[in-house]
């Protein structure tokens, strides 16, 4: 029952996301029936309609995940708009597992000692005060 419910919710939220996306994002310029520059680069668009729908879903997913990680709705939309279809596809569904370049903080004590040694040996570079030996 709960599983069914959550599946229902998932699809409902997808549909809602999709329609919100459709309202928010200006469609890519539709000029006559020209072949887009990107299409000449990306050859594998055999089924263009399906590709468009998938791209839409990917983008909706990334918008939702960005919001989950603390980005406001409007910002998330604008941020995903600046991504290509490929980029959105590559991060959709796994945003929380991707590296997020941040900074050096909260290093545990045990790891601290290991890192100190490896810093000095030049395998790592966590601490600003270490100077590694430079042998070639």
């Amino acid at each position, binding site marked *: 029952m709960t599983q069914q419910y959550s599946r229902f919710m998932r699809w409902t939220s997808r549909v809602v996301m999709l329609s919100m996306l459709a309202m928010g994002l200006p469609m890519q310029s539709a000029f006559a029936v020209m072949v887009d520059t990107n299409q000449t680069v990306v050859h594998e668009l055999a089924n263009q309609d399906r590709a468009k729908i998938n791209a839409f879903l990917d983008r909706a997913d990334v918008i939702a995940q960005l919001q989950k990680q603390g980005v406001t709705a409007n910002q998330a939309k604008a941020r995903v708009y600046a*991504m290509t279809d490929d980029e959105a596809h590559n991060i959709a569904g796994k945003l929380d597992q991707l590296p997020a370049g941040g900074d050096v903080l909260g290093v545990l004590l045990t790891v601290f000692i290991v890192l100190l040694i490896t810093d000095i040996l030049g395998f790592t570079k966590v601490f600003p005060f270490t100077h590694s030996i430079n042998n*070639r």
Partner: protein
Amino acid sequence: MSIPNARSLVVGVFLLCLGACATPPQTRLMLSSPPASLPRHVELTSVPYFAQDAYQCGPASLAMSLNAVGFSVTPEILKSELYLPDRHGSLQVEMLAAARRNGAVAYQLAPELNDVMQEIAAGSPVVVLQNLAFSWYPVWHYAVVIGYDLDQAEIILRSGPEQRQVLPMRTFEYTWARSNYWAMVAMPPGKIPETADATRFIAAVSALEKISGPGKVQGTYIAALKRWPGNLSAQIGVGNAAYQLHDLDQAEVAFRLAAHDHPDSVAAFNNLAQTLYDQGHSDEALQAAHRAVSLGGPLAQTAQETLAEIERAKKK
């Protein structure tokens, strides 16, 4: 500490030291046989430095690279475009997307130390993602490579709190390799990265065009065509940008050139047909449209639509 433990510690440290004497592959290759075209020492001292706030190495690094090539933007503005509050960091994809939002062509380099150094020698600072610690205990960090010294085997960076960080080349490679050698450059309009691959560069320009409009990228497509004469994607790019800017004559020239150089390109003939039709040359347009349809392939549907539209209009 019991004796066996002490012994294993000694062995462990010994092995680590042994490892430290080894040099990672790209550094070894670079130092043993550097390309003759590379100067021995380059440092882009004019790249500005922004000290970063906590976790803000993404916005700070991107701000440095954008400002260095003439886009004035602060780390604070970029923060709203690429920082993930709950992750205390920024994603690689968003580094590229945010560069684009500020008007730059965001180009991801090939995973080669050589390419990074070629870009530096050509005057472009390179944003890199490093894992400063271990694969099992990652400390992800963005920094900007601004120089190198082949004689000292060093890489020079603007990195976090350090305005000028000098790393042994091999240490840089260790930390950089853990991100699978991820590196990008932000290019101003009309400029092409020294190491750019034609197809991937045009894709990057077209990504910018999608959000900035054709006017901002036309010059870059033209520069690309100059760099790679006869390249189909560049020809189509020049033509499409001109077409969207209602410069049909220039579009026609570009598509004719594309069709001439690439007689089996559906895109070239389809877009030539549409342009000729818009110019009122419907007979010639029909010819090009038929040619596009006859070529088939994944773009056949678009070609069919163009042909149908021209035929419909002719019957009226």
